[in-house]
């Protein structure tokens, strides 16, 4: 007699982790080799391997090419990985904690709140460093929390568990308001109109490693926390009452997830401005490919979000080369039609 099928926990299958890592490597090599100067991808790959501890490989890159790779492109690709991973992981967590498939740090107004917080910190002159922690992301974090709580409060005025669209409308209202205040603040500072627009459209520019250093500690903390909390999002999916009767402290879980997702959003926005739809597109694609459990979606969103944003940045750099398109324009270009598809699919499910 055959053994009945074993029951498996809804965990990550190695094949999907491998797929995510391959996506990251492919996006990374593409991001390092393509640009104003094209450098052979296999050589870039060897060049990176050469810098891994314990490996010594001759990549055959010229000194000038190696400089382009290490001084210009690596910091930008690494920053792209971090921002993409952060936006996607916070999007998937917001979707779980609000039980709302349309939640996205951008559409919730969270990103705009982060932008306002960061702007106030910079123009108000409270840009300090506390050990590895810079105060700008902290101010962005406060703005994010405020925006998310505001969006949630506005959406529940008519009672709890309203339709996903209501939270979204509230988020858009909050986003518009926060962006308006931010624009006002920046306009009062002389001649920063260009800054305002690049911020609102999102950008991924680096001056060496300073942005990466700024965002790294916050990225590490928030991604680790959200990945640890992922099973709780699955429990939350059965509703507050049932989650409580299954022994989960719903309020504490919700506060923790919202706080860490807000921190992830804030960290990303502090260095990249408002980049929309990454938190919407990536978790949905992961869900379609690898299944609906948040235990799968949250960690894979980190990997695929990282790869997605680096590829989007490549499009932003190459499409109108030598001019650059703001990366937020690229993600919106792909993300907005995708949003329509998600809406259509939802309608069929409901």
């Amino acid at each position, binding site marked *: 007699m055959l053994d009945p099928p074993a029951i498996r926990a809804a965990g990550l299958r190695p094949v999907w982790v491998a797929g995510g890592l391959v996506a990251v490597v492919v996006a990374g090599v593409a991001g390092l080799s393509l640009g104003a100067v094209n450098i052979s991808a296999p050589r870039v790959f060897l060049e990176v391997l050469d810098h891994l501890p314990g490996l010594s490989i001759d990549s055959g890159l010229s000194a000038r090419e190696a400089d382009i790779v290490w001084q210009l492109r690596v910091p930008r690709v690494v920053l792209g990985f971090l921002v993409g991973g952060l936006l996607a992981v916070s999007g998937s967590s917001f979707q779980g904690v609000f039980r709302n498939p349309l939640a996205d740090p951008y559409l919730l107004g969270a990103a705009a709140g982060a932008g306002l917080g960061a702007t106030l910190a910079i123009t108000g002159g409270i840009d300090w460093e506390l050990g590895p922690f810079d105060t700008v992301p902290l101010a962005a974090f406060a703005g994010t929390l405020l925006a998310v709580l505001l969006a949630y409060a506005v959406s529940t005025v008519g009672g709890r568990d309203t339709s996903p669209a209501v939270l979204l409308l509230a988020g858009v209202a909050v986003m518009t308001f926060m962006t308006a205040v931010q624009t006002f603040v920046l306009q009062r500072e002389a001649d920063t109109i260009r800054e305002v627009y690049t911020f609102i459209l999102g950008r991924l520019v680096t001056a060496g490693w300073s942005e990466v250093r700024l965002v790294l500690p916050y990225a590490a903390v928030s991604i680790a926390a959200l990945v640890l909390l992922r099973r709780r999002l699955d429990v939350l999916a059965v509703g507050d009452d049932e989650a*409580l*009767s299954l*022994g989960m402290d719903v309020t504490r879980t919700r506060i923790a997830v919202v706080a860490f997702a807000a921190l992830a959003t804030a960290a990303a926005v502090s260095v990249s401005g408002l980049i929309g739809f990454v938190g919407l597109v990536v978790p949905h694609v992961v869900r379609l490919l690898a299944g609906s459990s948040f235990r799968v979606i949250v960690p894979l969103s980190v990997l695929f979000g990282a790869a997605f944003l680096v590829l989007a940045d490549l499009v932003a750099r190459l499409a109108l080369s030598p001019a650059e398109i703001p990366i937020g324009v690229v993600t919106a270009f792909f993300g907005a039609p995708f949003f329509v598809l998600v809406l259509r699919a939802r309608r069929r499910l409901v």
Partner: protein
Amino acid sequence: MIGLRDVSVSFDGRRVVDGVSLDVRDGEWLNIVGPNGAGKTTLLRVLAGLTAFDGAFTIDGRDARSMKRKELARRVALVPQIPQIPPGMSVAHYVLLGRTPHLRPLAGESRADLDAARSALERLDLLAFAERPVTTLSGGERQRVLVARLLAQDAPVALVDEPTTALDVGHQQQVLDLVDELRHDHGLTVIATMHDLTLAAQYGDRVALLDAGRLAATGAAGDVLTEDSLSALYGARVRVLRDGDSLVVVPRR
């Protein structure tokens, strides 16, 4: 043993449950009946720890309010009337959620948790469905999945909210027979809210009749569900007939 002493629940100053005192023995099956709005579901929510209340609620002599969520969930499990089924979640994964109160903080399921879920699926003939999304199952199959999650949760007390709603008569009987079997096999204590008075009389040991939040009567079905009490409380014209050992409540025109 479950004990309620003078339990009251108010919403916006209105008493929905009013001074209910009740004991439920280990292994007993108690059906809570009463007209719409009598407070059946609210009373069940008190027992599930989902509603604030005045009075005392003890489990084996311990104050339930002093228990942590997890502790309570290891003792009392709820089968909701209308469960929220996450889209795409497989039967196996859904049943595994029942193991939540047994997990260490932030940990995943251990071998023992997987085994518990598996034997629950086996017990309810659901192994073939393990990988299917719960949302693709029929109403009767879904009820079995809910009962499987209840088994996986491994709590000695089961709260069952209107288990037969939206099921045809055959599936109503199947679900209640199943709950009865599990009660005998696992020594479960069952507290159920019931809409259908005949089923409430046929299944379970005792009936508690609620009227506007108060406990109007408790006891054997034959003593509680009388033509007089039903006409007074439900405003209904009914005949209560004997059918062998049990009662049948029949509406009259």
